[in-house]
């Protein structure tokens, strides 16, 4: 990969929480405009990786950059959109207030118009005055997705973005995310989600990269007609 075209770079990163090693010499690069899935068993370090990329955590060793700058910089924050797993927007605010509040914090132009268009796109209009604490989990997830893209980010970091969504909304979100010309990294456990949203995979195990490549290449690792989930499961079990 051309270094100049690298958007997300994780270089020899290690991270430890007390005695637990979360990441061990982790390295990967994602070029501009590419969409990658982050796969791995529970405890592989997927969420820690995303938190390092968002700038919530600092690596103990190594370096993380987004667009060539450190993730905690204002420049990186302004181009990043982040959706954590089980995202929970402000419970004390209504749906509209959440969108306007975050839009204002991000200093986007036309907060009201952007809010209205997102309310319509995610079918949230009927809930706009409802407090988040009263919403169903699926509706909350729609709002969280809307909040992650409200500022039209160039880099999207998503943790299980399709969780809790009904099938029509899943299809809508898949169409949206694949149509956006952004660099994205999607953490997921579900192979079908990975293959719908991305073309490339970074597989983690025990805090390090187990395998990296395209989904087509991943399929070729298995026997003919072998489901891709079976191939991934075999690789993950082998790494443990």
């Amino acid at each position: 990969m051309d270094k100049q075209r690298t958007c997300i770079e994780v270089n020899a990163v290690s991270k430890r929480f007390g005695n637990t090693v979360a990441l061990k010499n982790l390295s990967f690069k994602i070029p501009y405009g590419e969409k990658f899935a982050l796969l791995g068993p529970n405890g592989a370090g997927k969420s820690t990786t995303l938190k390092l990329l968002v700038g919530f955590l600092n690596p103990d060793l190594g370096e993380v950059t987004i667009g060539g700058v450190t993730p905690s910089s204002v420049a990186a924050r302004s181009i990043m959109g982040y959706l954590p797993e089980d995202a929970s927007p402000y419970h004390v605010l209504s749906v509209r207030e959440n969108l306007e509040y975050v839009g204002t914090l991000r200093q986007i132009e036309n907060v009201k118009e952007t809010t209205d268009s997102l309310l319509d796109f995610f079918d949230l209009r009927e809930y706009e005055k409802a407090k988040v604490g009263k919403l169903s989990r699926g509706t909350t997830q729609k709002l969280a997705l809307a909040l992650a893209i409200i500022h039209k980010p160039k880099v999207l970091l998503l943790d299980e973005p399709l969780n809790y969504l009904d099938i029509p909304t899943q299809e809508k979100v898949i169409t949206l995310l694949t149509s956006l010309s952004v660099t994205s990294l999607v953490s997921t456990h579900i192979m079908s989600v990975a293959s719908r949203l991305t073309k490339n995979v970074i597989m983690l195990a025990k805090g390090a990269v187990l395998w990296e490549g395209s989904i087509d290449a991943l399929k070729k690792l298995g026997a003919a007609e072998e489901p891709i989930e079976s191939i991934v499961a075999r690789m993950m079990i082998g790494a443990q």
Partner: protein
Amino acid sequence: MHNKLIKFLLYTRFSKSHIAVTVLMLVGCCISGILANSVSFMFKPILQYYGVGITVFLLATAILGRGMRVMKSDRDYLLTLPIEKKELALNLYLVQIISFIFTNVVFFGILVSVALAIGGGLSYILLPVDLVALAVLFSSLDVIASVLSKKMKIVLGAFLSLWVLSALWGVPFSLGSIFTEQILYGSIVLLISAILSTVIALKKLSNIEFKVMNDLIRASSSDMEKNRVFNGISRFRAIFSLNFSAVKSSGTFSMKTTLMDRIINILSRPIILSCIFALIYVLLLPQLAAENVNLVVTLHLLPLMFFITSTYQRGLSKERAWLSFTSMDPMLYFRYVSVAKALSWFSIALPFAIANIILMFLGFQTILPIISILITIPCLTIFTLYWGSITNVVQLREEVQMIQTQTNLKQWVTAIPYGVFFFVYVLSLLLPMLGIITAFVLLGVTLFLLCSRYPWRMFVEKLTEQGFV
């Protein structure tokens, strides 16, 4: 009685650290009471005022509270167990009484120490019994009030508060008389009230509805009458609007509101309540403790400072770091939030500062309380947030609250700054200049913290490691 059930409830609701700290507190009070024999006489009239005031506060908490403490994990697991609802309710009720006994030790331990120091035979025996009876009364009122309407809760709370306060005017048959010379009459009244309220509470238990603690807030304010508009304002104003709670409180935005609801909503705003209490304070204080005004005010501020320290975690649990930290520089965000919260407390405390200024013009020595309110309280709000970050105590996430008795040793550590400042403040009663210097040192430290990048950067990382983000 289901032995395993009550053991399970006790185990899940009381941390060993909390029990240890409470026992230590009680032992400390007893030792200080024995050592401070002569000084206690000076404190006695002040502590009468304190005892009555705290009783009103805890009564209001019980009546306006959220009924039986049921956590989300209880709803998901405990309430699905094949156990009779009445039996479950009874066990939860018993555990709640124990919880209130712990609360009473924290708030009233100092009174036990005085009873020991003075060695008044009757109070020596009755006060510990009274504190248990108070715990039973609070728990029963909690259950009884949970099925009452908001209006009835306010009427009941106002009636009981006035009844408790009447002890300060020498009424013997008052709940507050347990803290005065009329302790025998007070104890009789309290025991009868506790028994009667328990009988009523036990009847209500079979029909009680278990609600997760937060459901009440959400249910009362699920739809907003009017959305706040963040569109077209600056970031600071948006953050300030969300975090400045002096003029707003949870549950005040219900769609279906009558005129009475609106009046109650206005009266329940912290700043309005503060004005009312400040007015009562300025009218009552000269009559109650003219010679010990500083001590009265100090003891009056004690629960307020404790409240700031102990509730900051709940304030943080409402934060959504994944949104705010990615939207702007976390350091700047927390700086704005801290200032908004400090100003919020400042506004709530301001009526008391004005009340003390009035008292100063009337000839009372209230300079320390004025400085304390204007400087110490807002600074302590910010300092506590910072202290919480370096001691890494944040455990709360989203809206799932903890019960007070589940606090662990680390969370108790958050009370250290409060304890240090309170200690220095009490010392400054002897050396007023020390109080003034302490307040300005705190102001300097707070301003330094606000201007530094490192503490807040570390704060973000600690919150993330704790799973808050």
